[in-house]
């Protein structure tokens, strides 16, 4: 049992993109804030902060999840991968190219989250159309680029 008091700064170590990041934090710090503020990994975007927009999506032990709905202190035993880590993945160039060719982004705010979900759930996964829609439904794009994004994702299955 580990008990971390409310207002104390307690050192924790998180494993992110193959590196160890150590910082003194309060237990209420969200994983998304730890990644941005303590690790300086600002590719993880923070939009709605209640699990709706999907901009903060990262991989925790290989599964795409909302980093704004997790506490940093809760994932000290996990392997976390952000968009910065995935950008070094061998599959990434194909994703980059598919998004470029299909005009799958405009302002780019939602893009890191979508790319994280795509690489976990779509790339090389032989998904049906409705499964791709289900994955993309977890992301809001306010430039309404969904058609372009769907074209890119279809190309990547």
């Amino acid at each position, binding site marked *: *049992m*580990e*008990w*971390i*008091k*409310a*207002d104390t700064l307690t050192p924790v170590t998180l494993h992110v993109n193959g590196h160890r990041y150590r910082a003194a934090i*309060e*237990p*209420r710090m*969200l994983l998304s*804030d730890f990644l941005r503020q303590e690790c300086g990994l600002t590719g993880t975007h923070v939009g709605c*902060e*209640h*699990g709706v927009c*999907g901009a903060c*999506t990262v991989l*925790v032990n290989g*599964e*795409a*999840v*909302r980093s*704004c*709905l*997790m*506490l940093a*202190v*809760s994932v000290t*035993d996990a392997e976390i991968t952000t968009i910065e880590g995935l950008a070094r993945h061998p599959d990434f160039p194909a994703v980059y190219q598919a998004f470029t060719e299909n005009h799958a982004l405009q302002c780019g705010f939602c893009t890191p989250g979508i790319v994280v*979900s795509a690489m976990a*759930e779509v790339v090389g996964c032989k998904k049906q159309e409705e499964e791709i*829609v*289900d*994955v993309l*439904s*977890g992301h809001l794009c306010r430039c309404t680029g969904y058609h372009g994004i769907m074209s890119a994702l279809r190309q990547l299955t």
Partner: protein
Amino acid sequence: MKPSAFDYIRVDTLDEALSVLADSDLEAKVLAGGQSLLPMLNMRLARPKTLVDINRLAALATLGRVETDLAPTRGNPTINRGSTTFLEVGALVRQRQLERYALEEPRSRLIHTALTYVGHPQTRNQGTVGGSLAHADPSAELPLLFLTLGGTAFMRSTRGERQVAVEEFFQSYFTTAIEPDEMLTKTLWRLPAPEEGIAFKEYRRRHGDFALLAAACTMKIGRDRTVEHLRLGLGGVADRPLLVDEVRGLVGEHWTKEGVRTVAEAVVNRLDFADNYQASSSYRRQLATVLISSVLDAAYEDATAKEENHGVDQG
């Protein structure tokens, strides 16, 4: 949009979790997947003094079929008494884990269908089955499905273990039979027999949103095509998911459009549909009439197809 301060206790055993919950001074709230709790913390709709993180209790993540004589549906004569096959779902089983399991298990098809309506793959990866049931949002899919299938919830505290039939589990808005010192440890879900008809329908503005209205149905018909038993559950209409008593009028009868319409109208007339932020009262009543009729017809059609195949197999 940041949580208020709380003490955080990560437990390594169930007994540690129960001892934390037993200390009423800590006012501890259980953190499982956090897909309902974290939004409430971020918006400060919840300000617990202590969070007890149970994510490392791997023993609570068991999933599999069990055969048991347990009477899970006390006080409900519409259930098929012959079926004793249950799906045992540990409280910490992730919704995505159950979704993948249910895809491969023919008798869990209704569970699979309903799960595809729960949030998004990214929230189902982390959200737990137990968490959704304990949160008891009146428009959430998993509570509706648990109630419609029938089953039992198991709770533990330092005082011991307790079982509650699902019909008594959901009590009001975000309120269940779980006492403050108790933790939900597992649930048993009745699996429909292979010949039972099943259907799930939901209406919402966008995929992944909470349901404006959801309905689930299981139905067994006889060789003569009369209804042998039928359960219809509704979500999003009251302070908790509801089992509809009016369907008893269809049991023992042949299926007719008039019978279905009579039931749908009786349900809609009995329930109170107030205006809410999503829709007006008259819209919700109209939607309920249509959705109830359509889920009943879909379950009957499924039951008929299965009964025909069943007859062929036996011939």
